């Protein structure tokens, strides 16, 4: 299968440098990276976490996260929130007819971008 994707320039450069350094094709690198990502998603869905381990002392050194893995992980254990029927009704109304974001919210979000 041929896959086309848009990635940041810095990531593309890193792939090219790795390909050069390891003597691999870009396809091989992307294939292995995707294979690792699929494995990571499966592990997180099982409720596990991904960490690197220092072989000298078997201590975890850092946790591997991406925005998607973090989202999956914190969605795994949703708490149940019971609200009065009127509150749930209001939420449904707000979702059915969402207001436009206020100028203040848009300006704050723009500063974040």
């Amino acid at each position, binding site marked *: 299968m041929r896959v086309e994707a848009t990635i940041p320039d810095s990531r593309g450069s890193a792939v090219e440098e790795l390909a050069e350094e390891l003597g691999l094709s870009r396809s091989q690198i992307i294939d292995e990276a995707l294979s690792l990502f699929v494995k990571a998603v499966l592990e997180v869905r099982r409720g596990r976490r991904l960490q690197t381990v220092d072989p000298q002392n078997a201590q975890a050194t850092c946790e591997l996260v991406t925005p998607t893995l973090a989202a*999956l992980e*914190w*969605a795994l254990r949703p708490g149940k*929130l019971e609200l009065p*029927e009127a*509150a749930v009704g209001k939420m449904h109304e707000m979702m059915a007819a969402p207001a*436009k*974001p206020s100028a203040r*919210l848009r300006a704050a979000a723009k500063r974040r971008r």
Partner: protein
Amino acid sequence: MTRRIGPGDPACGFRCGKHALDDYFARHALPNDQAGIGRAYVWEASPEETDRGLPAVLGFYTLSMATVVSADIASAVSTKLPRYPVPAALIGRLAVDERARGRRLGEKLLIDALSRVVSAAETIGCLGVIVDAKDEDAQAFYSKYDFVTIAAETWPRRMFLSIDVARAAFAQG
């Protein structure tokens, strides 16, 4: 920018002036994060700020997922179609160190949290964001950013923002 809470953070001397929040940060934020109960994100002070005596963490917030259902039994047995449970993100706590006030850090933390939720909603089901406003100041703060009080009878006030509103706020243009 924010980062996930780390082992050294709880002892950094963070204090927002509200005992419940200070206690939560010092004792529960990290264990809850590590247990996957609720993610905690911190706003780190710059080296210059810590040199001036500010703590290493100037603010924090927590995020978790919740499924919202009606507590009204009558609605569940009524002849009307039951409302479906609503998956929503919950900003459980958000606080700024009292020595770092006046820098719009509260706004920055809230927008950072909304940004994470909007990104997460691309991957998982999430129809909105719920916050618990602990007092009138907090309620006024969240109202400024389009949160609407949905349960006004009790404290903390439950407030809601539809994911469509949050997504539109971050959209270009």
